[in-house]
């Protein structure tokens, strides 16, 4: 028994040694995360090691989170969900979904940014979602632009998918920005969640471009 345990300890020591001698070199990760949700997968999914901003409809943000958690169940990973406005409602989610979510309640923009920084630097979670959609515009305007550049540098070596949910275009020079529009009504509340995407339109903009309607709204 002890010899077996000692071998395991030696194995752990070997792992540490290899990790120390051959640290992961910083690399730009070009992989993409497919959520199984057609509107996003058709546009190429979510870039790993980069920020993706999803702005527009709040309901679209919730549905996107649901799709991501479903993908987490499929591929066996966990999602860090930074809830800037403390608006997540666990009773509307399945237990299997909830088990995949690390819920970080912040209550304001500044702590949410700090929490995102901590989680992104950790690099253990392959998907981190920062939900800023329910925050007042005044708080969002106070987030320094340099924050997003710093996050981009932190993300590159880790390959984490970082999704920022915002009401309006917020992240400067973001590699991919997605805009969700919807005309969802009360009747949709009885439809299965998978079928709800028929009421949403997703547009993808590369390299910081933004839909004119949303820019006008934010102005």
């Amino acid at each position, binding site marked *: *028994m002890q010899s077996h*345990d*000692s071998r*395991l*300890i030696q*194995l*752990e020591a070997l*792992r540490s040694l290899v990790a120390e001698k051959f640290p992961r070199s910083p690399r730009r990760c070009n992989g993409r995360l497919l959520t*199984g949700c057609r509107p996003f997968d058709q546009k190429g999914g979510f870039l790993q090691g980069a920020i993706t901003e999803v702005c527009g*409809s*709040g*309901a679209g943000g*919730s*549905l996107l*989170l*649901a799709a991501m958690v*479903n993908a987490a*169940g*499929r591929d*066996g*990973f*966990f999602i860090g969900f930074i809830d800037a406005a*403390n*608006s*997540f*409602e*666990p*009773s*509307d*989610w*399945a*237990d*299997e*979904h*909830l*088990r995949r*979510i*690390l*819920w*970080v*309640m*912040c*209550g304001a923009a500044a*702590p949410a940014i700090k*929490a995102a920084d*901590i*989680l992104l630097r*950790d*690099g*253990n979670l392959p998907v981190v979602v920062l939900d800023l959609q*329910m925050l007042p515009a005044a708080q969002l305007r106070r987030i320094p632009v340099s924050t997003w550049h710093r996050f981009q540098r932190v993300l590159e070596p880790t390959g984490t998918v970082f999704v920022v949910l915002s*009401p309006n275009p917020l992240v400067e020079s973001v590699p991919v920005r997605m805009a969700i529009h919807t005309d*969802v009504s*009360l009747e*949709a*509340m009885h*439809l*299965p*969640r*998978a079928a709800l995407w028929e009421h949403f339109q997703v547009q993808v903009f590369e390299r910081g471009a933004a839909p004119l309607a949303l820019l006008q709204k934010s102005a």
Partner: protein
Amino acid sequence: MFGCIFLPRFRLQAALRWHDVRGPAVVVNETTLKGIVAEASEAAAAQGIVAGMTSAQAMARIRGLVIRSRSPAQEQCLNQILVQTALALSPDVELCCDGACIADLCCVRKGTCWQQLADEQVAHLRTHGLSAVMGVAPTPDLAFLAARGARPSAVIYDPGAFANSLPIETLEPPEEFLRILHGWGIRRVGEFLALPKMETIERLGPIAETLRRKVSGRNKRLLRLVRLMPEYTEAFDFDCEIETIEPLLFLLRRFLNGLCGRLRTVYRVAQRMVLRLPLENGDCHDRAFSIPAPTADVEVLFRILHTHLENLKLPQRPVSVRLSLQAVAPTRDQLQLFESALRDPNRFGETLAKLKAFLGNEHVGVPARSNTHRPDSYVLQECFPMPKQKREDTRVPLESLRGLPLRRFRPAISTLVCVQEGRPISVKSSAVRGVIRSCAGPYRLSGNWWDCECWQQEEWDVALAKGGLYRLSRHDTTWNIEGCYET
């Protein structure tokens, strides 16, 4: 053969363990007001201080004498270390008194050099900061006697010759018995053994036979085996309350060095750490840390403690510190060589500790629904142990969930609602106002009707004419906006 590991001046060693004391020192029993000297260091003994003196008498003899009170916590720790060291030699171990442990060495490989074995044990205990001696002899009692006279190790091959040279006092006979022997001119054990056996027993009683057996090379008595679960605990009482984190961190690192060394000796790793800081007002700050990937790495464990302590604010100053580790066997569910459930579980644990320190324990965790229909009821689970990554598909079909997830306003927004024919037609609040185009409801909820926490409310899903889907709730005549589905 039997081996006895002995810690000379056990109480003094325990009391001075984490102190850097070079001069003469004594440890006192504080059961009386005067403080009676329990043990004195070699330097103090050389200047005439003996056990039983009062501390005032001891101080009168030596200027600058260091006086410490007994530390029961440290004494317990030393006994644990001693037992654990002995258990590494043999499963049959007896803790015969504080600071003395006897092990049956019949399991030791044949051909082992006893002298080398004893020296190794002494050297091992020196790494824990303990000055130990060890005796090896054919019987447990002789091993104990050999250990008490060893400098620092002794192996007895000829029990007769060894016993003959011992002073009669080493057998610790009763005082009356010793007085009689001295009256007969007997000073050595050999002289006592030379007396006729039966006549000695007739005159002195059964105690004479007991003493003979102690030094007999053939009396292999049964050991009173120790079957304690080894504890991995270190503790320290500060001389005065501490106000900064540095001395605490310094001590904790030393604790971890010793504890992790002990864990590695028995091929174990730490699964849980418990830090206890007794405060000056009698309260205690207790904190348990789950180690995500059990380890015996000092740096990993120290970082967890450091992260916690650097954000810790206590109402009072700590007067002592206690650290316990819970040991487990290393994990057996090995994945591939470079694969684990998380990329670096221990780093993730530190990250969670940072988040909890920054946002509060009640703001970080894995959400779960609580066992009630009461709105806004949930529980946050401890993040660890995280389930292992399995490749089986655990997706929940999105078809099984209906409607949009709610985004809840915490707290709910109080609002004025106009009602016509029992249905809300407009809403007016600080955040949301407008005419209601359509609504669904009422959805009536209630619970806890069987106790004083009885609750009930009515919920409506409404769509505003200008856009936006909201959930309204009504308690009696009060309306609130609970949250929104789409703004």
